[in-house]
């Protein structure tokens, strides 16, 4: 039974209800005196509570899309992260590195016609350089299918969810593609291709888009080099840095800013929604830096901006004065950034680290990205 979806939710709800009824029904049997009856009551309350909690957690996971499979969950619980199987040798050399699993369209008025609503490709990206692979959703805007744009090489944005996060929620919850269409129709956004992914490219593991030390997965290289080159080989996109941007929330925001800072020959703009700056390491990341303090420092974006030259990129950092812990660090980053880097900010009076905040910021981030990225003539 899958971790997400109705069957598990219904099963848990039925069990919770049954547990509740059973406690009420067999209540008198635990009404006696003595320690056994007492332990029985505590046990009955505990079982009913655990069932209820499990149901609520499953429902929340369904809605927010934290973990997509039992495998992800087990990997996190055990800290035992297996890299995805390496691609067959040489197989990707002639291919594009992208396998399209299915096409779909957006549930918006007129969306069935790609020239009006664009097209969503469910794909698997296999990295030629790193051997890693990832599930991605690639959105092609309506203009991609219009005759007037037949020779346009579109700008492209890599969109990352937070950790934990499921890629489908970028379409259904944060609604990046639908919001882009709204923005294009309102004349605020230029057409762009969206490559949507989760930082969980290794089941359950939070790699923080890092080339993990000691021979670990080269997640940073995968995002910056493998994904971009596979997309360039498959779609009509501008392969110059002026055509590539990144956006993400939370961990996805940290990834967006870090990947652009470290690969400013590949990307020219990054929007970090509620992103942090520090080089995180915890139970969900496993050992990322191999105990090397210098390498860890190089992944700390505040350290980088203070001590190293600022790269030639434009960044958009979002935070709020009340509700976000990254307010102070964001101001520090803005203060320490030097030319040629350009740092824009989106600051709210209040708003926490949640989907209400990001839902409000996605349209602004898309508009900012589309004004910083340019298409090319094919």
């Amino acid at each position: 039974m899958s971790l997400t979806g109705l069957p598990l939710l219904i099963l848990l709800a039925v069990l919770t209800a049954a547990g509740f009824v059973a406690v009420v029904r067999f209540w008198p049997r635990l009404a006696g005196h003595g320690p056994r009856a007492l332990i029985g009551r505590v046990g009955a309350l505990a079982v009913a509570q655990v069932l209820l909690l499990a149901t609520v957690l499953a429902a929340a996971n369904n809605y927010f899309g934290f973990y997509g499979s039992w495998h992800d969950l087990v990997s996190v619980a055990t800290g035992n992260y297996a890299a995805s199987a390496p691609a067959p040798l040489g197989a990707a050399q002639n291919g594009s590195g992208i396998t399209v699993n299915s096409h779909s369209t957006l549930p918006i008025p007129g969306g069935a016609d790609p020239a009006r609503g664009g097209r969503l490709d469910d794909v698997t990206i296999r990295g030629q350089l790193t051997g890693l692979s990832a599930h991605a959703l690639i959105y092609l805007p309506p203009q991609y299918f219009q005759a007037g744009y037949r020779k346009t090489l579109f700008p492209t944005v890599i969109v990352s969810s937070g950790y934990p996060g499921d890629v489908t929620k970028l379409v259904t919850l944060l609604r990046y593609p639908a919001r882009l269409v709204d923005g294009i129709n309102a004349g605020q956004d230029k057409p762009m291709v969206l490559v949507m992914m989760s930082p969980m490219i290794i089941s359950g593991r939070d790699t923080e888009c890092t080339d993990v030390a000691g021979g670990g997965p080269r997640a940073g290289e995968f995002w910056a080099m493998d994904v971009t080159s596979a997309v360039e080989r498959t779609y009509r996109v501008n392969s110059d840095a002026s055509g590539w941007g990144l956006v993400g929330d939370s961990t996805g925001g940290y990834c967006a800013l870090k990947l652009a800072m470290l690969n400013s020959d590949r990307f020219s703009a990054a929007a970090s929604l509620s992103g942090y700056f520090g080089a995180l390491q915890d139970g969900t990341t496993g050992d990322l830096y191999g105990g090397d303090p210098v390498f860890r420092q190089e992944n700390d974006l505040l350290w980088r901006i203070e001590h190293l030259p600022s790269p030639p990129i434009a960044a958009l950092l979002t935070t709020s004065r009340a509700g976000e812990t990254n307010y102070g660090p964001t101001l520090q980053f803005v203060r320490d950034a030097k030319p040629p880097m350009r740092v824009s900010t989106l600051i709210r009076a209040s708003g926490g680290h949640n989907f209400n905040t990001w839902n409000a910021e996605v349209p602004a981030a898309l508009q900012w990205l589309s004004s910083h990225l340019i298409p090319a003539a094919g």
Partner: protein
Amino acid sequence: MGITSKLFLVTLGLLALAACGLAIWLWPRLAGRGRRPVAGRIGLLLTTQVALLITVAALTNDLFGFYTSWSDLFGVGSQRYQLKDSGVVQPNVNASQLQGGSTATPASQSSSKPGASPKATMVSTTLVGLRSGITAGLQVFLPPEYYAPADGRRYYPAIVVDDTSDPGVATLASDLMSGKQRPPQAVVVIVRGDHHHNIPCVNEPNAASAEQFWGQDLRTAVADSYRVRLSPAAWGVMGGGPGDGGDCAIALALEDAGRYSAAAVFGRWQRFGAPGSPADPAWWLRNYPAPPSRLLFAATGEPPQAILGPVRPPLQVMSTPGPTSESQTLDWLAQTLQNGAPQS
């Protein structure tokens, strides 16, 4: 009372505990038959469950900092924001890394007669690396056809010659310009140190600035100034002699294969990297998929198998039986890149 205030969380916790205590204490009194005791059980059980659930939810929220105010939770807070757009990066920022420069052409060029074949160009300039902060002297060789009108839209592969630690290749520039042999159909970029510091190599530990210099600063500066594409297929690197230029060339084509697709070592070259460390090419090839790069070992010393270990496709390795001159090595790289590089 704030959604994350101590008072709120403690109050919730106490209420939940009280509800549980009450349930256990009142349990026997509600054990009877009939409608009222059953209704009492349902009410009591529901109360404890909801109280505990809200407590757990509030503590989790506080721990992760999802919602920090009630208005945020109910989505009724102001969605207004202030966006300060600082604009885009200067478009010519990569080309601006090349500062100053003088162009040299062979003496015969000055007395060019009508119909004379075009001559090669050598530009001496300074690269001030935007990302790495590293400054280096560059000599950029442009083949004779580069400025020919008929060739005005042709793109060339680029070959980087790592001359930062090895004075042995110092003669390459004059060899290229002497016209004694057919010049390579490539833009050749000879990288010299700044006479004060060695330019680090990508296979040194914590060589972040080296990766930024060789992989990004140098490539973007050249590609934005000359007709060279940024595609890895258009880029090769070579080094040799007693310095670590050869190690660096091999390391770039293995570790940064998304930016350099070919490398060559030449002359009397001795491997530097410690075996079994991440600086060892064999360690890299054991731990990661083989990159789609092409390597030429045209040097004395260990055979490629001893340095690389087993070679798997798509990596291709060639070797020559003895040391080869830098010009021959350059030719091999130029032809190898011609075979795979986009030309227009």
